[in-house]
């Protein structure tokens, strides 16, 4: 009777060890597989190069404060008056196409990683990084409205 109890206890200990081992292995596996997100798909690359090409046009407008980075990872016209008259015409279309690309980019990253529902979380992650990486002098939307970096 006693022996059975001991045997059971030993077995139980082994079991615990095994489980710990499984969990350790599993944890290691997790750590190793804490994966980089897949961002190298044709769709994401196409959006990236579209945005790269547009950035040449947008950069001076960030600099002059005509446009700024919004808190939700997009951009917006902040002050059209900061622009020469001739540039005011195209600015809305430029901002609209940039925002279309950005929204698509967030969604495509979510889709490329098999979680279409991640779109808005990815957008949030980007929102902070755009602002962090913005050049000094550029404007971004903060709680108190437009703020200059």
């Amino acid at each position: 009777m006693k022996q059975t109890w001991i045997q059971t206890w030993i077995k139980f200990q082994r079991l615990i060890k095994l489980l710990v081992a499984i969990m350790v292995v599993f944890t290691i596996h997790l750590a190793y597989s804490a994966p980089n997100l897949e961002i190298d798909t044709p769709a994401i690359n196409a959006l990236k190069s579209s945005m790269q090409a547009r950035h040449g046009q947008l950069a001076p407008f960030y600099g002059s404060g005509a446009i700024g980075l919004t808190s939700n990872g997009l951009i917006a016209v902040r002050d059209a008056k900061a622009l020469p008259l001739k540039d005011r015409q195209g600015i809305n279309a430029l901002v609209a196409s940039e925002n279309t690309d950005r929204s698509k980019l967030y969604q495509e990253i979510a889709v490329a990683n098999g979680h279409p529902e991640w779109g808005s979380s990815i957008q949030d992650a980007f929102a902070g990084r755009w602002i962090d990486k913005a050049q000094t002098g550029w404007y971004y939307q903060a709680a108190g409205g437009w703020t200059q970096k």
Partner: protein
Amino acid sequence: MEKNILVLLLAGVLTACVTINIYFPAAAAQEAADQIIDDVWKIKEGDAKAPGAASETPTQDK
């Protein structure tokens, strides 16, 4: 009895596993964002050089 415990614990581990996978990989997303933003905004530095580089590229006649 042991088997029951085993099954329970395994079930626990498995359930945990499922839960873990649902979390949004915030750090990875930040990293991905950094990479993409660097690519998109880097174009500014290349701007000045681009036209010169382009003119050096031999043009091909068809």
